[in-house]
């Protein structure tokens, strides 16, 4: 059998390929040779790593960090996990930021423990690591923690829910984030404390994971209602979760007045829901402040100042439309003036 009829065409194509290949190789050689390493700028680099990049809380945190960085003349490098439990993504981001030469990393850890090894390596290289919002376990894994007291956030809304349902028979549902979420555990336990009950109290009809997201919280609440339709107190990890649960309640024919819903965050959408009577009370926190304090701490450290350490409370207020006796709270107006998102 002879050689293919396409022989000529193939040789031609081969020449084209070689030409392209040679060009590419030449381009590579030339550009690498000409590559002048960009001068290491004197600007301070600050890393920010959030759980995911879409939650409004983290969006606000990112914006706050950007503002603070440009004010201080620093450069912010931002990264986030693919979803709120993407540990590997956060570890990779830590390593890359250390290589990028950041002076400090601000991180909301996806897991209380899973990032500790990578954080330890970063600190060993002299990088200041500050946990924002979510504490690590142990807390000594990072240099400092800038956060809302999440336990107190839970206590506030627990007390409010107790006062709102005084003297009534309560059936409680709790929508958590996901397993291993340190913030979730703190808020959850704070709520129980504020409400004055234990983890396995019989009044708790349902505990489910909504991932802190509206789309996952709705089916979680639907299933809770299926389990016990009499639910009249609802704790949610955050306001998107409360919004998802509310859709489920509405579809089940419940009225806002029939169920006491409490939440945490104080985002603008959440506060508006308080105004609309969907959420009865929420613990407002201040991510912008966390981020700007964090950036400032890193810049101070980079300029020869001391490392930040310990726990810094970034503040907390209970926002409620209907103030209740014995439970201090701020108005919706205040909440809207100080909200984020």
């Amino acid at each position, binding site marked *: 059998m002879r050689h293919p009829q396409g022989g000529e065409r193939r040789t031609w194509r081969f020449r084209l390929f070689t030409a392209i290949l040679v060009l590419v190789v030449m381009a590579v050689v030339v550009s690498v040779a000409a590559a002048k390493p960009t001068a290491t700028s004197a600007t301070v680099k600050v890393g920010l790593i959030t759980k995911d990049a879409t939650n409004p809380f983290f969006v606000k945190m990112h914006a706050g960090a950007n503002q603070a960085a440009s004010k201080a003349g620093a450069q912010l490098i931002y990264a986030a996990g693919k979803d709120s439990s993407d540990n590997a993504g956060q*570890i990779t981001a830590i390593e890359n930021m250390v290589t990028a030469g950041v002076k400090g990393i601000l991180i909301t850890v996806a897991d209380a423990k899973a990032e500790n090894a990578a954080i330890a390596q970063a600190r060993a290289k002299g990088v200041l690591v500050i946990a924002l919002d979510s504490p690590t376990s142990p807390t000594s894994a990072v240099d400092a923690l800038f956060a809302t007291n999440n336990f107190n956030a839970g206590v506030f809304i627990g007390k409010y829910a107790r006062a709102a349902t005084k003297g009534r028979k309560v059936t409680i549902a709790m929508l958590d984030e996901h397993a291993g979420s340190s913030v979730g555990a703190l808020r959850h336990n704070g709520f129980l404390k504020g409400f004055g009950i234990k983890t396995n109290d019989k009044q708790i009809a349902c505990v489910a994971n909504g991932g802190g997201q509206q789309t996952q919280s709705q089916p979680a609440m639907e299933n809770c209602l299926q389990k016990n339709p009499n639910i009249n107190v609802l704790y949610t990890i955050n306001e998107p979760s409360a919004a998802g649960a509310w859709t489920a309640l509405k579809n089940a024919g419940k009225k806002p007045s029939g169920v006491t819903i409490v939440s945490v965050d104080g985002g603008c959408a959440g506060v508006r829901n308080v105004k609309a009577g969907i959420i009865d009370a929420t613990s407002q926190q201040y991510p912008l402040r966390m981020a700007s304090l964090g950036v400032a701490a890193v810049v101070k450290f980079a300029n020869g100042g001391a490392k930040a350490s310990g726990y810094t409370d970034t503040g907390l207020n209970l926002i409620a439309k209907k103030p209740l006796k014995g439970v201090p709270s701020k108005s919706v107006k205040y909440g809207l003036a100080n909200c984020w998102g």
Partner: protein
Amino acid sequence: MGPTRTLQLARRLITAPTVGPFIALVLTMVFFSLKTDRFFQAQNFSLVLQQVMIVGVLAIGQTLVILTAGIDLSVGTVMALGQVIMTKLAVANGVPVVPALLLGVLTCVGFGVLHGGLVTGVRLPPFIITLGTLNIAFALTHIISNDLTFTGLPKLELFWGRTFSISGTDFTYGVVLMLVLYALAWYGLNQTAWGRHVYATGDNREAARLTGINTNRVLLSVYTLAGLTYGIAAWLLIGRTQVGDPNAGQTTENLDSITAVVLGGTSLFGGRGTVIGTLIGALIVGVFRNGLTLIGVSVIYQYLVTGILVILAVSVDQFLHRRNG
């Protein structure tokens, strides 16, 4: 004879499926070298390798499966299950570390055997089988771990995360293991009869059977070996995160392993591709993630670029597929 031979060699080199991905990788590296002086450093390359190590090892198994015209959607969750078994047994159940590791690896191998058995015995499509086992492994991970993160692990479980130093650059032992596994996979696919049979089976299962190849045995071996790589990846993952984490390896690793294989020029139609290409594919993703952070660009752009490259790679594959029938 001389010139024509060289010509042929050059042509084979150019039409080799790894050339495209390789050029893409080189261009990416040139780009980041130009943008920042922190990129082109031995320490940074070691870092990128360390970051692709887990997906890289998973992608070896995925390459084998895809070469036989299959797909495995369960890689990440099977790995997560193996990891939780390894750590839970050692920490919570007091099992000595070696049996704990072995049981973890064996669990993953067991999933591989299950996949292979269903593909050959019941002749179910791999997509559906592994969609099922994805959920099964996910559930088992959370049931077995009781949603707890395991810490305080024995040293041997953390071994692959340890580093050694060559002239000032730190390398992770896990990276070495990954490279060894790639070498072994290359040897098996290119230098043994088994490798030929994998390609032939993937290209056309019925034709391979008619040629006298025991295609069922080939497929079973491929899925079993793939399970083994997931087990090894589980151990690497523990070394990297230093914990046993039930939330690990969910959707990200599954899709990333397929991305690496596709970017590496392996055909989703089966029968064409290389394991070295897969390594390059994994590195492309890793270099983008690393480089973008180094130049201070949000990691989100990595997904944008990866998406474009995947579509490009599949288009080239489709074109070659039509041409070669």
